């Protein structure tokens, strides 16, 4: 199961890289979103997938599953949500002000 998920992480990371290297702003932002999914799965797998019971003493006598990776992922999801939202707003403003959503065109624009 771990190897399968690691292959999935690899696929997601390569899709993300492909999108980030493209010229269109929206594609790049989608690429960062897919990147964050890849790393969340990676954290989950590195912590070990489900091996035992719920880590609550009164409900089980062990072996327990490590619950920490899920807490980490929850935090990381919230942060990547905030960043993506801000990035979308910024991209929209850039498009409105500069009149283009293509990185090559943006780079060649003269300064003010």
């Amino acid at each position, binding site marked *: 199961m771990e190897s399968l998920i690691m292959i999935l992480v690899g696929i997601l990371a390569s899709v993300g890289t492909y999108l980030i290297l493209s010229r269109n702003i929206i594609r790049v932002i989608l690429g*960062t979103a897919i990147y964050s999914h890849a790393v969340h799965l*990676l954290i989950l797998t590195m912590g070990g997938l489900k091996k035992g019971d719920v880590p609550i003493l009164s409900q089980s006598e062990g072996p327990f599953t490590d619950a920490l990776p899920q807490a*980490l992922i929850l935090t990381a999801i919230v942060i990547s949500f905030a960043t993506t939202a801000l*990035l979308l707003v*910024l991209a929209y403003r850039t498009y409105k002000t500069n009149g283009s959503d293509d990185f090559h065109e943006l780079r060649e624009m003269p300064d003010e």
Partner: protein
Amino acid sequence: MNNLIVLPLIIPIITAVVLVFLRDQIVLQRIISFVTMGFVCIVSFILLNIVQTEGIIRLDFSGWMPPFGILFVADSFSLLLVLTSSIVTLICLLYAFSMMGQRYEKMFFYPFVLFLVAGVNGSFLTGDIFNLFVCFEVMLLASYVLVAFGGGKRQLRESLKYVLINVVASWMFLVALAFLYGSVKTLNMAHIAQRVAEVGQDPLITTVAILFLIVFSLKAGLLLFFWLPGSYSVPPTVVQALFAALLTKVGIYALIRTFTLMFPLQQEVTHTIIGIMAGLTIIAGCMGALAGRDVYTIATYNVIIGTGFILIGLAVGTESAMAGAIYYLIHDIVAKALLFLLIGMMIYLTGETVVKKMSGLIQIYPIFGWIYFILMLALAGIPPFSGFIGKVLIGQGAIEAHSYILLALGFASSIIVLYSLLRIFLASFFGETTISPEDKKPIPKGAYTSFILLAISIIYLGIGAESIAVYVKDAAETLMNPSIYIDAILKG
């Protein structure tokens, strides 16, 4: 008393949230943010003195004993940085009061500065590597907003690049964290250090260490600084000063903490890479500073040279080099803030950014000109100003460790720094003035106060180096002997 440690993080956050609701009361916003930063300065000073008598102190959130819970750790190194960055922010706020303009102040400028400070202080104080990531993100989210503050065409283009690069860097931070957790099964920094020391630093852990090196180098502008000159030259002056003073320094702090505490065992691999990167950074920074024709380019490449120079101290890794790196880090926070404030003021006064088009500023604004002169000497490392002692100690450490190439590069960079800044001084401050008497703008009192306070700090750090020597010595000792830090956390 330990509860004090959390105040440099929590106080700015609470006030920032309150300030959001006081959007139109600009005077009230100014007073509250100023008082808050003053309070943070006092708290961090008190903490610094507590640490001298009681040793490293820590705060376990909700009573979870380490290594299980998240904790804040205060040692001399982190508190020196918290104190310096809070003082610099306080002084930068004074500049903002007179120069920012109501349009900007109404757009939540002060709340975001406070969020930035909270993130910076949190990164310095945390003792948990995942919490370091969270504090980095708090700081970065505030900086994303501040870099785009104003929304000019070029500014938005540059800030989009800045945000994307930092998003990818944060992603790599998470990847490194995942592999680290997979190999040592803990996130507490002291516990990681202990586990790594127990099992030895095998190639897998060294690889993870290099991943961290790449992430923090991106934030610190160590070799991977391609994003820095563009994005540091677009936001308003105060924001530039805060970025140059604080953001790259957090990256440097993280590098020093990671490679002295957590991964110190494979120095011939990691520290050699850091040394090479620092050398290349200095060379590239010098080239940029020499080639630059406008003041922004010269100033941003000076930030890069400073980063390279501090990391020579880490690469060399002797105790005197570490003390020198700490001295220089403190000096650099103050000096780079002043450099960007002065340059912003030059542009405000003349309306030009190209060095050759400005002339004769010292005739009209003598004090302004002499403060620039002091700053130039301090950045070049001439006694009795603040850069001197750090340069001497890093040089001494490099000789002890026989790293003569880094020594030569570091000291040669001082001459280039002096040359690049002297060029601005000769062209823009001397000569016939180009500003006609009708166009002459007075420098606002708040801006003058901030320049003078920062200049006094520079002179104090140079002449009064003895008075902070106790703190720096303690900080360097803790960095060189990670066992002090580990014992304070896991055995306390």
